[in-house]
């Protein structure tokens, strides 16, 4: 009976498992690093996790519609390059707003290219976005040939230290992302996203503009990648033309950890954000436990494989029990 209840709960809240994992990771991390819950440490952790959280939110939307975006990391690099080459340490507020808007535009344009190829030309998302990631990486290198550049110092300082009501700014932004998603999901467009990922032909027959929904999901992912670049560059105060590359795989792992189904049609942003926190904590644990960092890659790979195999394993166990 209790097992049954858990299954039902899990169906209603697909990120329940992720929450359990999060609690476990927090506990282990706390044992290794007793000052984990001090405001300063919490803030630094949230700031480190935030760029990936924003990126994973975009990845979630694409994956829910049945696609995948392997170029989000490259879009982060590209948008970061735009930011750090155009913003001086003492840039005025107006200029900052303008450049941030420009970076957002670049992210959306990159997403639009992905969306055009996948939705309108009906190319395979994996191959297409892998290919476009080279275009975006190339552009990033062209804009910013070597690591460098700068960010407005005042803004960066505020961003790093701000902690309204004693909670890190990052937590507010993460909550904002979740509220944004909840709102989106409650609109007609939100239903479209799930419908297109669940069964595109059925969605089409129901009058859902399948092509546009797919297109929009990539544009949104591109926009969020640009915001991710902003969060990342505010943290580092400089840019690297490859700074986002490693984030692509992480964003997918976080989405999977958060209970969003890789084949689409089910999931949500809240799970992915928890997924990022779990990934970050695992990273902390590995560094505090003095384990070589290459274990991280293995852990990432194991998470993806386990997540992919989980539905099959559950079915296998269930049929065994029946027999």
């Amino acid at each position, binding site marked *: 009976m209790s097992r049954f209840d858990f299954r039902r709960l899990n*169906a209603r809240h697909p990120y329940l498992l992720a929450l359990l994992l999060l609690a476990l990771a927090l506990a282990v991390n706390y044992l290794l690093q007793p000052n984990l819950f001090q405001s300063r440490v919490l803030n630094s952790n949230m700031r480190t996790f935030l760029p990936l959280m924003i990126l994973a939110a975009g990845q979630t939307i694409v994956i829910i519609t049945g696609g995948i975006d392997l170029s989000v990391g490259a879009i982060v690099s590209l948008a970061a390059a735009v930011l750090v080459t155009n913003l001086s340490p003492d840039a005025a507020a107006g200029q900052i707003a303008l450049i941030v808007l420009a970076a957002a535009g670049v992210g959306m344009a990159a997403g639009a290219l992905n969306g055009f190829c996948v939705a309108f030309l009906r190319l395979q998302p994996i191959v297409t976005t892998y290919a476009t990631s080279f275009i975006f990486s190339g552009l990033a290198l062209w804009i910013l040939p070597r690591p460098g550049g700068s960010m407005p110092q005042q803004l960066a300082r505020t961003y790093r230290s701000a902690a309204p009501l004693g909670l890190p700014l990052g937590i507010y932004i993460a909550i904002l992302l979740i509220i944004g998603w909840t*709102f989106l999901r*409650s*609109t*007609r467009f*939100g*239903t*479209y996203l*799930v*419908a297109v990922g*669940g*069964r595109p*032909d*059925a*969605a*089409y*027959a*129901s*009058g*859902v*503009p399948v092509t546009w929904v797919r297109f929009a999901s990539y544009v949104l992912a591109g926009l969020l990648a640009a915001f991710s670049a902003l969060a990342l560059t505010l943290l580092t105060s400089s840019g690297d033309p490859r700074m986002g590359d490693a984030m692509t795989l992480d964003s997918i792992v976080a989405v999977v950890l958060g209970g969003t189904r890789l084949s689409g*049609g*089910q999931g949500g942003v809240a799970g992915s954000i928890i997924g990022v926190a779990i990934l970050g904590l695992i990273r902390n644990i590995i560094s505090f436990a003095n384990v070589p960092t290459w274990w991280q890659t293995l852990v990432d790979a194991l998470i993806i494989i386990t997540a992919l195999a989980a539905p099959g394993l559950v079915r296998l166990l269930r*049929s*065994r029990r*029946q*027999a």
Partner: protein
Amino acid sequence: MSISLTARHIVKRFSGVVALAEGDLTVDGGEVVALLGANGSGKSTLAKIITGVLAPDEGRLEVDGQAVTFSSPQGAIRRGITAVYQELSLIPDMTVTENIWLNHEPMRWSVRVDRTQARRRTEELLALFQGAVSPALMPETPVAALPPDEKQIVEILKALSREPLLMILDEATASLDARQVSRLFKLMDAWKADGMALVFVSHRMEEIFRVADRAVVLRNGRTVGERAMSDVTERDLVTLMVGDEPSAAAVAQPDAAQPVDPSARPRLQIDRLRSGRVHDVSLAVHDGELVGLGGLRGQGQDDLLLAVFGALPFTGKMALAGEEVKFNHPRQAVKRDVAYVPGERGSQGLLLIRSILENFQLPSWVRYGTPLKMGQARQDAAQMGASLRLVMASLDAPVSSLSGGNAQKVVLGKWLLREPRLLLLNDPTKGVDVGAKAEIYQLLEDLRRAGTAILFYSSEDEELLNLCDRVLVMQDGRITAELSGVSLQKENLVAASMGAVEQAGDQGGSSS
């Protein structure tokens, strides 16, 4: 408000193949028009053109006397035209409510979906089928958790929720049980009285006579006739539909049931089998015997057949020709000359994008050595195709290019190539046209005569009555009645299916 729709000389080609050569149809508010025709005659194509899923290559579509072109289903919906699709348009992960209101959700502040209202209106819609569906069908139930008949009902309610002026029901009754069908017909009568125009596509004659005012008959992509139901007979319609081809009304009548040697070991004997929805079923099928499984849809017939085929785990005893077996995988069943022909051919019977040849030979490649003797394989497949009178462009054409009836012949043929001793059939004539049905009946009769043991589930009572030696009626996973000889009458079958009478034959009646 009422609608009048006219389709004139509609032509549709798919990569050179003419699917619809001259489709004509007129339907007005307050009438039910039956659209009839063998599979591949263009009914579905015509229906899809009217609902904007497909664009016609030629011809004219008029709504209320005004020419229209629909570039998408959305365009047709705006004119009040909706369809209940045969291939369901539901999204498995979404709830019943979300599916019904997809794309026309009640809104709050014109941005957010008003879930309370959507739920309430879903309950109102579900109430229309109250008593004919299980209580588990709730607004929040995910569609993936529903059995096929309830999915179909949700599909009907989804079309209804648009408050259409014209509704097309494409084989909407194919997966419903008798109670649900009669409820649907009562509703259709009410909608008709309210001025809705209804186009009803079905292969079941009795339903067409029950519900339609007029019949429009298509043959080979052309509208060949239009008759008022009041002055036409079943035979007239069948003649119009099939032309000179073998008439379906002439269902192959079996010879007087061959005496089964009671001392011989049954080909299949199962004892107290439990699996999925099946509880304690015992039965025996002998060589040369055609045993029917009847009853309402979803009473465990599927799971029984799948368990015998090794696709579902089971408890209980099962013996093939006296030898006890326990299959964990269909592969083991296939090795023991058991074959399973599903009605869901698209998902369970065929590799749609692969060639007819590959589909035919899929279970049999092992016989053609390494490297494969392709010449021999082709020859055998071609022979099978010819003996099934398969209408195809070539063996290399993809199965998806075949009509429903021909595709089902491929599913049958791929198992016949292995010469099975026990043939399990799960509603094999679902969505198959009358001509092909008659051929399939003849084929089953030939196989039975050649000594194959056949266990046959059908959702059509007529098939069971006309083809089977014995019919076992299932209800709630149990065999509740066994009909044979004089008791094999339609009234008995219907009564037993509905659980109205305890029929002759003891509980879980086994014949051995």
